[in-house]
């Protein structure tokens, strides 16, 4: 088990290290942008994987927490001169704190009701990004010129920035991997499979769900900060509902519950539209098609441990059997 984990770790690190070597060959800033974007979305997908793929909570507002991280990093950097080393963790913690606040009342909601609640929360945060002009500069977005300053060293080259992003993403993904492939991950999986049964095993379902949601949002916040530092400009549209759906599609396509699958899903959905750029801006339509196709033809995703549909069924196994007959009775 540890051996295979070592191999996996090695593969992830190698991929991150080899990519720039190839990119140097092309010597084009554009490729760095794509590589950085891909790395950031891999982290977003991996963080959503924890809450949706492993713990089985359908989260439709992930991009908003990504946005919280980005705005915290950008505003702290632009208005208060807070640099990368402090801004990055603060961005993650802010996203986690907001996630904690919204999780408290919504965690008891089941299934699609939870999904819809996260959608509403995502939209509310989006409205804040868009309309709280004093804080977020509204639709004009925030410019961040400071870039990445690592312990006094200004990192300016494309390669350097890429390595910083890749390092943060790699460490975060390893943490998420560790969390989802441990006894802790087993506890989260048991919620996905049958939360009522898990509670009979002595698991505090609500607390576990809140933890998963908060951890996932923390890493979304980290991804947001990386986005802000690398692009130097953020605007509300970067964190629109459609971005949440993009991330969700990565998780569904890659396979619910499978981290490698999810990472490949992220790469696919970032690189495919870029490769097809000549055809026009069709990223979103590809997202829609890929999502539809994978639900219809690949219910388990590319590598999933759970079929998207089976997952839903078990997730709700709680009152599966007494659904129709005892509508008025149900438990609780």
């Amino acid at each position, binding site marked *: 088990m540890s051996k295979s984990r070592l191999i996996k770790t090695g593969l992830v690190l190698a991929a991150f290290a080899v990519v720039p070597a190839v990119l140097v060959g092309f010597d084009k800033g554009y490729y760095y942008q794509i590589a950085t974007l891909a790395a950031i979305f891999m982290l977003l997908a991996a963080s959503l994987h924890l809450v949706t793929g492993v713990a089985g909570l359908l989260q439709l507002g992930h991009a908003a927490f990504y946005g919280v991280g980005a705005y915290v990093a950008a505003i702290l950097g632009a208005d208060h001169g807070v640099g990368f080393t402090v801004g990055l963790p603060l961005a993650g913690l802010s996203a986690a704190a907001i996630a904690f606040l919204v999780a408290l009342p919504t965690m008891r909601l089941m299934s699609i009701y939870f999904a819809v609640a996260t959608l509403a929360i995502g939209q509310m945060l989006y409205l804040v990004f868009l309309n709280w002009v004093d804080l977020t500069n509204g639709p004009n977005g925030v410019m961040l010129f400071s870039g990445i300053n690592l312990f006094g060293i200004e990192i300016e080259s494309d390669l350097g920035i890429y390595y910083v992003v890749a390092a943060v993403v790699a460490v975060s993904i390893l*943490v998420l991997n560790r969390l989802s492939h441990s*006894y802790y991950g*087993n506890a989260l999986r048991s919620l996905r499979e049958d939360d*009522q049964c898990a509670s*009979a*095993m*002595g*698991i505090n379902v609500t607390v576990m769900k809140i933890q998963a949601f908060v951890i996932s949002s923390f890493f979304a916040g980290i991804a947001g900060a990386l986005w802000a530092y690398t692009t130097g400009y953020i605007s509300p549209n970067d964190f629109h509902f459609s971005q949440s759906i993009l991330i969700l599609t990565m998780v569904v396509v890659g396979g619910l519950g499978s981290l490698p699958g999810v990472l490949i899903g992220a790469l696919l959905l970032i690189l495919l539209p870029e490769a097809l750029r000549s055809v026009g801006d069709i990223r979103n339509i590809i997202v829609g098609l890929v999502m539809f196709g994978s639900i219809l033809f690949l219910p388990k995703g590319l590598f999933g*441990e759970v079929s998207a549909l089976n997952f839903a069924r078990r997730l709700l196994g709680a009152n599966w059997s007494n659904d129709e007959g005892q509508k*008025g009775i149900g438990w609780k």
Partner: protein
Amino acid sequence: MTAILELDGLTRAFGGLKAVDNVTTRVDHGELFGLIGPNGAGKTTLFNLISGFTPPSSGEVRFKGEKITGLSAHQIAHKGMSRTFQNLRVFPNMTVFDNISVGALGMLGVGPFSSLFGRSSHAKEISERSWEMLEKVGLADHADDLAANLSYGKRKYLEIARALAMKPDLLILDEPAAGMNDSETTELARFITGLNKEGLTIMLVEHDMGLVMGICERLVVLASGRKIADDVPAVVRQDPGVLAAYLGGDEE
């Protein structure tokens, strides 16, 4: 003998219907206790009242002398009560080992930080317990199989093993023999008796009279939510009320 579980005037009404009506009884330490009744007698509701899945309309449940009504299911589990489900609720997309580990880790507790930094203090214990239970029910060879791929009978044992991994003081089995043939039921009876011999208090909720009559030391019979008998099997078997409730007695 001291009581491990006491039910006191337990009632649960759904609308006008009393699914469980004023049930009072006790289970003693080390006992192999049976709760039976025809379909719709309120067994599962009573079971859900005991394990905290349904709040009672009135009455109370005491476990090890402590009132547990109003506690949530996971709190009751932590007091040392463990249950299985009537309709086989293993975690299908997890391996057999992982299934059992959930029973152990639920009780021992596992947090995100302890599993990140170094060996969790409980990790070793979780693993040992899980293997112990796997051996006990004879599923060690299937440790890495998905639970969904096990046969029906093996999944039954997996569910029991998962409950045992909680190291409970009281194990409540909800219709464990449902869907089993005669020889499987006999083997299950032997297994349950064995667990009881090791000192575990067991409450068996059953529809099938045969299994319960054969192995239980004491029985409570429910009909239409009310307790109609509470005695040793030999007496219950002769009870005219019980025979009437089962419409002509135990043909099973």
